[in-house]
């Protein structure tokens, strides 16, 4: 099916500097993610969970999942650092700016302070 008539041999798989994970590793990573997701869903069944508690449990798990997907599936861990900078800058801006915005609305005053207490 592939009718590649390029004279040069197809360029070797794009070099990422480091070796990317193998398929087996990807599956393992997915299992980890799935496990965390199960834990997340599990919190739904905790009857007496307060919002504070849920935030305290769920947000860290969310961040871990986020980092795993970005780092491994999106190869940020292996790829050119410029990608990381561009993306994380956007992410950082988003979190900080909207965090501040929500703060000016007093959004965190109830939940957030409870955690600190």
């Amino acid at each position: 099916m592939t009718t590649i008539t390029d004279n040069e041999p197809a360029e070797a798989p794009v070099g990422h500097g480091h070796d990317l994970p193998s398929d087996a590793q990807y599956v393992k990573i997915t299992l980890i993610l799935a496990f965390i997701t199960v834990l997340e869903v599990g919190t739904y069944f905790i009857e007496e969970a307060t919002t504070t508690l849920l935030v305290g449990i769920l947000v860290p798990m969310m961040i871990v999942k986020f980092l795993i997907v970005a780092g491994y599936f999106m190869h940020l861990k292996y790829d050119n650092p410029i990608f990381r900078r561009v993306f994380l800058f956007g992410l950082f801006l988003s979190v900080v700016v909207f965090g501040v915005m929500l703060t000016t609305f007093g959004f965190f005053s109830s939940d957030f302070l409870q955690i600190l207490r």
Partner: protein
Amino acid sequence: MAIIERSSDILALPPGAGVARAPMGVFSRPRAKTGWRSWVSTVDHKKIGIMYGASSLFFFVIGGIEALAIRAQLAAPGQKLLSAALYNQVFTMHGVTMIFLVVMPMGAAFMNYLMPLQIGARDVAFPRLNALSFWTFIFGGIFLNTSWFLGGGADGGWFAYAPNTGVIFSPSHGMDFYAIGLQITGIASLVGGVNLVVTVLNMRAPGMTMMKLPVFTWMSLVTQVLLIFAVPVISVALFLLTFDRLFGANFFNVQQGADPLLWEHLFWIFGHPEVYILILPAFGIVSEIIPVFSRKPIFGYPFMVFSGIAIGFMGWGVWAHHMFASGLGPISVAAFSVSTMFIAVPTGVKILNWMATLWGGKISFTTPLLFSIGLVAMFTIGGLSGVTHAVAPADTQQTDTYYIVAHFHYVIFGGALFGFLGGFYFWWPKVFGYFLDDKLGKVHFWLTLVGFNLTFGPMHILGLQGMNRRIQTYRDGYGFNFWNFVSTIGAFIIALSVLIFFVNIARSKRGAHLQSAPGPDPWDGRSLEWSVPSPTPEHNFDDDPVVVHFDDWWHRKYQADETGRVVKVHEPEEIAMIGDGSRAHLPAPSYWPIVMATAFPLIGYGLIFNLAISFVGGLVLLGSMVGWALEPSDDEDQLPHGHDGNGHDDGDDDHAAPAAEREEVTVGD
């Protein structure tokens, strides 16, 4: 289905009939190099830059006429030239036009034309996307302005505070046009932003490290980064408003529990970075002009770069200074007040570094330089009034008065526009191959300066005397009469100066053949764009330039002699490229960008008037996406070309063309 390129080779025409390669009339790949077709289908960053410039000037006249209408209405108390309803539309459209359709695209014009040249690239990273940005912008602008004929312009002010812009309070279609029109220009900005950022990061000539980029390119990069991150925010805000207006959503419906401050936040989170998007390209331009005419390098290059980055960065942390009176609470106000003040620090560094560049120079007072000095002087005034707004308690007295109007016209007109006007005079010979008349240019400058200060200077007084902005008229007896009259006179002087600018363009063009040709480097320039012939040949550089120094071109002309004194060792003509383009390979023109861009206004009209039009627009969008994808970025029907000595067999009868073509595309998308 076979892939559709390579048409020429399989046409069963008798041998020798090489001319008629595509039997498809308008459906064939565009190839024109001159005439209107070449403009419609171009993907050349220079042509696109020129079109950006021309359309921004066009919209400047529209926005200016709106401004003159405002000033005429306010010339004396109690006038009835414009009804309240019309006045509200006029000032709103004035603000929107000037910001989104004049200053932003004017910046884009310079960036498009110059940035690839300054980094030594043949084009931007994605030439077709570049064309798409332009067409999307221009159709967005036209879309916005057609509102005048379809029920009236937007009437909610350029920052469109909800709920005053909801259907209940603004039932005409004006705000729909505003919301959708800005959405469209937002798409244009976003696409352009991604493109130009990638270009700067990725397309630099060998040796052109980041810290050797010309300051203008640096400022463009910061601007585009700001755009990329700011546009989505206003997009969301506009979506929410559109959904509220068209589909009855509740985002700004106070009765349903909404908080109108949400709009204010979203708008200004975009809006404040936006004002730096307006000014930074002009800062970049001035940083190119002042060194050239002082014959000295820019003072403190690293500081210039980092202060620009700092401005861009800090610009994200100050948005609420537009909301000091809206009841944020003292803690937020205090935080934003202080953060705002500190933006003066990097900006001050820039002002002082320009002054230090002038210091000890040998300054020639050409028109570009006059405008640049004008910027330094006038922007400072606007910046200082900005700092007085940053003092939050004081701002509660100033906000929404003409003192603010004075501030932002000083920074935008006295800053951004002065810079751009200087840039026009400076790069005109590079772009068109002839000079703009310097004498008329000076008349232009002085008239502008005088008119500008007459118009906006008095607004400081008016504002402090308590004259509100956005008022259709004012009463006698408030002490507003005299200065308003002066301001109106000033506005008409500006109009005169603008006319002189246009006369200058027309006269210079007509007299172009009488002038001596500017040559590649008429001003003894410093950056790479001066190393190619004027006007710039289509392929920019004959060979990829190899960069050694910051201000590389200047260093090629001037070197230290045995005694260590820097002297001129080469005339520019000796070392400039000749423009024969022997080894160049260019992306092929395409119709798809303009076709795709028509989809957006169609969808917009449809949302406002009848969804069936949106449906057609959607089809156009989808179809052109596919058409675009199927069209190789490179037109292999074009004449054979050498590339890096790598010949390409054009007779190759291979249908799976992309694989073959891949190896020799210089730039494409």
